[in-house]
């Protein structure tokens, strides 16, 4: 038995008298945030700080013939100008990533264009000036001469036989290998993803019904409220300090170190409070630019983006096209699936098509399956992670087919899902098998939920249901816990707090020792004050950093046992810390509380720090997550407007450490998924410019668009975690797309195959159906 299971079993036997896990504690950062005292990246103020702004390409696809910055540099108040010439040549020509080898130059060219611009908004230069007005005026003085090229805006544009090739400059074997040649000619298809098992022909030969459909989703943005920002000071001793809004300070440090060619030890990244990320703040945009402007000007520099820059030049999720063919028996048993996924990568390879491929059939057992994913470059911003990256689109396609299949076979939609549900031991598309999962419990709860069984009586109102699956993440985390002599603890972790992690981690620490949650001051460290910790993302933090916190607490208890054994003059083996009463127990009646023991630490060798460095949780411990959503919608036949009337999200959450935060994650994910289903999309002009690059025109759902999102927390504890935690943040964005589309069909009889289902498309579909 692996050692961690022993630890887990021990933990489950020791229930503390004082327990915060499972309660809705007050968040440590709450008061500062609601009173405006919290320091976000753009709130950072340093002596003599100046302002940076970025000059961006007005063209989606063009060759840069010349950049003249002389007039801008001569402008009074301008202290520095940076172009791609200021970035060092990469040390290694090729980066080895688990997505495969990538040219290192792309790391820099994405930040600051060199030979070509590949999307509107692509940075070409940056200015630092004494105030923002001077900086913005001076941007207009930078003269850039372009040779404009035809833009590649859609997947069809990119795959056309005569398509302009974005990365035509390589002509070296690496770029040739990256892009799949088509008919002996370079293409815009960057590597494929293939997975599956069984015999696809044999599978379809067993099928009595086969459905073959095509689905599309639109490029959409995470829509975090806080825009990107970076503040840098490059000291004369060569050391750089960076403040930024990020989901992971260590990832930013790694990337900035690489593109600037400086050592990790000379770079300190301090994560500020963060106003939303959802995957989009795992990427470097402004940080190296701010650093270079600081080096050139000799002053601290702060660079911020406005909303248009965020929409045009950061990382949305892919627009997609999915070809799905699924075969089943007349009884409803799935026998084969053949799926082709085409995902927009943006200007450089790296769409989330692998995530889409791995999750598409996640909720189901399909004995014969083949999934092919294409990563397609076009003249749009390079995509980035967005909540369950890749999964909403591919699972929308499968869940829409499941709904149609249920109708065709006259089987209740949830019953069809139940009879095909993947459970523990069933094979996943990536070759691994499901561990302990709560899929069956989610399906049963959904089936029995009053919403699912409620009668619909209104005209043009329909109900849809859909499942969602996400594998969840593990990775590396660190935690330090400083015990003070008054019994209070300062808990430092490396996980940026986006969804209440300071609270949920302190709660796990408190319960491991049986102490009060209120006695813990929970902080987020920076790259110089805490050990390496991966991003807050992938639904990993409460799980993986929870593991680190648990181990740091165990380390504290071990050290307390050793210290107090000296006071009691007994063997350390005879002293045991119990979280049940938060006390140390020795031979006979010897008992000492945590607080009393803490008070004695100064006299027994000084204060204690519990540590857990680089706790690595691999996917074997991670508990995958399933959810099911039920949506009721009304479709207005005159306007095409779809209104969500009632919405329920049911999800296996492992064990909810802080139930209100878990509910918030589910509600937030559902709303983002509803946005993808009904409203959100990048609208492009023919010249490759975005037509709706503001929140006035990029329509995200807001509170008065939606009913209350009801949540049901199904708790199937993850055996790979001391508290049974599963990541909960990703999966709720997955089901809404199909749940809404299936509800629209139920309401007015049109099968929506292209999202968003905005009024224009609904009216078009209704008109086609009537004609």
């Amino acid at each position, binding site marked *: 038995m692996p050692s961690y299971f022993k630890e887990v079993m021990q933990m489950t036997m020791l229930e503390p008298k004082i327990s915060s896990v499972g309660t809705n504690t007050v968040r440590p950062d709450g008061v500062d945030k609601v009173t405006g005292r919290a320091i976000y990246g753009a709130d950072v103020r340093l002596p003599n700080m100046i302002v940076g702004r970025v000059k961006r390409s007005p063209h989606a696809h063009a060759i840069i013939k010349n950049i003249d910055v002389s007039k801008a540099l001569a402008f009074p108040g301008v202290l520095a100008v940076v172009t791609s010439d200021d970035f060092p040549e990469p040390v290694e020509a090729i980066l080895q990533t688990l997505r495969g080898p990538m040219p290192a130059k792309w790391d820099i060219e994405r930040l600051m264009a060199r030979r070509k611009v590949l999307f509107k908004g692509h940075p070409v230069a940056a200015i630092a000036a004494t105030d923002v007005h001077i900086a913005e005026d001076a941007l207009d003085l930078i003269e850039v001469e372009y040779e404009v090229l035809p833009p590649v805006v859609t997947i069809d544009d990119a795959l056309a036989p005569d398509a302009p090739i974005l990365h035509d400059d390589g002509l070296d074997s690496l770029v040739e290998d990256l892009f799949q040649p088509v008919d002996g000619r370079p293409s815009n298809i960057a590597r494929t993803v*293939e997975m599956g098992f069984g015999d696809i022909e044999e599978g379809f030969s067993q099928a009595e019904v086969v459905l073959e459909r095509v689905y599309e989703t639109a490029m959409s943005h995470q829509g975090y409220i806080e825009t990107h920002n970076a503040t840098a000071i490059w000291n004369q001793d060569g050391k750089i300090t960076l403040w930024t809004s990020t989901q992971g300070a260590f990832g930013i440090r790694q990337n900035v170190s690489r593109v600037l060619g400086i050592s990790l030890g000379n770079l300190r990244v301090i994560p500020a409070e963060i106003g939303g990320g959802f995957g989009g703040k795992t990427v470097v945009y402004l940080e190296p630019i701010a650093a270079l402007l600081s080096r050139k000007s000799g002053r601290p520099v702060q660079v911020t983006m406005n909303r248009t820059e965020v929409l045009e030049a950061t990382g949305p999720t892919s627009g997609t096209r999915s070809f799905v063919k699924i075969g089943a028996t007349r009884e409803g048993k799935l026998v084969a699936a053949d799926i082709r996924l085409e995902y927009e990568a943006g200007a450089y390879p790296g769409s989330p098509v692998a*995530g889409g491929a791995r999750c598409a059939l996640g909720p189901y057992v399909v004995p014969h399956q083949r999934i092919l994913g294409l990563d397609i470059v076009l003249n749009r911003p390079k995509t980035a992670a967005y909540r369950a990256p890749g999964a909403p689109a591919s699972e929308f396609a499968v869940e829409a087919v499941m709904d149609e299949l249920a109708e065709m076979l006259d089987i209740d939609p949830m019953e069809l899902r139940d009879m095909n549900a993947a459970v523990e031991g069933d094979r996943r598309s990536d070759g691994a098998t499901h561990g302990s999962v709560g899929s069956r419990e989610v399906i049963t709860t959904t089936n029995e939920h009053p919403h699912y069984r409620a009668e619909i009586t209104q005209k043009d109102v329909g109900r849809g249901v859909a499942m969602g699956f996400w594998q969840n993440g593990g*990775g590396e985390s660190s935690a330090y816990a400083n015990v003070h002599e008054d019994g209070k603890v300062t808990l430092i972790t490396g996980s940026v707090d986006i969804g209440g992690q300071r609270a949920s981690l302190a709660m796990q620490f408190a319960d491991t020792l049986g102490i009060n949650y209120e006695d813990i001051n929970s902080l987020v460290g920076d790259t110089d004050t805490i050990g390496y910790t991966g991003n807050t993302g992938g639904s990993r933090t409460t799980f993986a950093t929870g593991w680190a916190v648990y181990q740091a607490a165990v380390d504290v208890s071990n050290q307390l046992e050793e210290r107090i054994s000296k006071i009691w003059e007994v063997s350390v083996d005879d002293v045991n810390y119990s979280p049940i009463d938060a006390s140390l127990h020795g031979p006979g009646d010897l008992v000492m509380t945590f607080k009393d023991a803490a008070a004695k630490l100064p006299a027994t060798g000084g204060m204690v720090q519990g540590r857990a460095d680089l706790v690595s949780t691999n996917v074997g411990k991670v508990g995958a997550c399933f959810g099911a959503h039920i949506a009721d919608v009304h479709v207005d036949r005159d306007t095409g407007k779809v209104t969500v009337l009632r919405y329920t999200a049911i999800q296996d959450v492992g064990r909810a450490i802080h139930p209100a935060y878990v509910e918030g994650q589910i509600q937030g994910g559902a709303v983002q998924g509803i946005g993808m289903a009904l409203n959100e999309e990048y609208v492009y002009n023919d010249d490759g410019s975005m037509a709706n690059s503001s929140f006035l025109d990029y329509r995200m759902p807001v509170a008065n668009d939606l009913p209350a999102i009801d949540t049901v927390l199904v708790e199937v504890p993850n055996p790979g975690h001391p508290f049974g935690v599963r990541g909960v943040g990703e999966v709720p964005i997955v089901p809404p797309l199909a749940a809404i589309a299936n509800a629209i069909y139920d309401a007015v009889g049109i099968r929506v195959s292209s999202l968003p289902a905005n009024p224009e498309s609904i009216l078009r579909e209704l008109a086609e159906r009537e004609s």
Partner: protein
Amino acid sequence: MPIVHLPNALRAFCEMRDSVEVTGTTLREVFRNLEAICPDLTTQIITSDGLRSDLAVAIDGSILDSRGLTETVDTDSDIYLVPPLGGG
């Protein structure tokens, strides 16, 4: 013979093959023998500290909890290398 199934990202290091039959009774032996077939591939899987920490290995469907190369492998085992998924 055990079969090592390769994700797309690693196929470039093994003549674009999607799987390789390799002898071995432990993971260490399998990967050592794999090196003879595809010399550049093994360094993508194993570092001096053992299995690469950002790569999961599943033997017959079960993902290893530890990073040990001493894990036993049956003659008909399927070994899948599973890259991490980036999260949001």
